[in-house]
Structure formats: C-alpha cells, structure tokens
C-alpha cells in the first residue's frame, strides 16, 4: 500500500469529502508525526505503535572500503516500536 492508495481508501469511505481534503488530512497526520519527532517528542498510538527519537552516541567508524577511521558525530534517529495489538494481529492472535 502506498500513500495514494491509502488516500483513495479513505476517500471511498467518505464520499462527502473532497479528494483534496482527504489528501490534506492524510498528509497532515504524517506531517504531525515527523514534526513531533523533529522536536524530540514521542507519538504514541495505542494498538498501532509508538514513534520516538533515539540518540546514537558519537563513535569512531571505519570506511569499509579504505579501512580509514572516521569520526561519526552523535546523532538522533527516528524509531518505531510496534504496538501490542498490532503485533498480536500480525501473528493471528
């Protein structure tokens, strides 16, 4: 499923909404999640999962091709943990 298919499903279920409003709704939701994480916030969606930000410490890495050592700075990365209900549903429970 891709973004446009998700938009289409929701548009089909809501014939009273304009397609462009459905697009705005779907885009707004994803934008809120990304925006929250870029402020360092968590987004917890019970039953689905939680988006959070994890800190990766700085480390000395190595260029695998040349073997050269490189300093990798500390960084923050997005992280998703599946919710219990969805995890159970994936396993037919």
């Amino acid at each position, binding site marked *: 499923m891709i973004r446009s298919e*998700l938009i289409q499903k929701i548009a089909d279920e809501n014939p009273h909404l304009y397609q462009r409003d459905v697009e705005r709704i779907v885009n707004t939701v994803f934008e809120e999640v990304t925006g929250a994480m870029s402020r360092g916030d968590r987004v917890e969606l019970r039953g689905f999962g939680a988006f959070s930000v994890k800190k990766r410490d700085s480390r000395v890495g190595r260029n695998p091709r040349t073997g050269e050592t490189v300093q990798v700075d500390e960084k923050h990365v997005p992280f998703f943990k599946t919710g219990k209900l969805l995890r159970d549903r994936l396993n037919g429970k």
Partner: protein
Amino acid sequence: MSDTTLTRMDLSEAVFREVGLSRNESAQLVESMLGHMSDALVRGEQVKISSFGTFSVRDKSARIGRNPKTGEEVPIQPRRVLTFRPSHLMKDRVAGGNRS
C-alpha cells in the same frame, strides 16, 4: 530531550485545525487511517509512505531463546514482526531538529 508525548488526540486536533471538520470526524479519520495501514500489514503488505517511511512485515524463524534472569532455555516460536524504515527526509529532519 523533551518528554512530550503526542497521542491520537493531538493528531485529530491537527486534522481539525487543518481541514475544519468536526473534532469527532477528525478523530474517526485518524482512526481509519491507522486501521487501513494495520489491515494492509496484517495481510502481509508493505505500507510505503513517500517522504515518511516504509512499514514492512518480516518473518522470523523459530529459535532457542534464553531467560536472561534464570539462564533457562525457552523455545521462541516462528513469528511475524513489523519493521519501520524511516525515509531520508524523516531522518534528516529528526537529526536536524535534535542537534545538541
């Protein structure tokens, strides 16, 4: 890092502000989005949202695990797990917004 947690309510509030539907309908739309995404994943489909990320389902085979407290061996059944791979755009925004 701040300890603010957003919930469904914040997402539907954003939809409410952006589109001007009722709060109730906004909440239902957020729910239906999550429902369609979950259903697709349960069917084994990938959910690929451009400039956000990709959710995919992976099959894990059975293995022998260990209770870390007691050291006891326990069989772990084969199972399906969900992984999320953030898009480059999301990674860049999250890294850029949290620079210390």
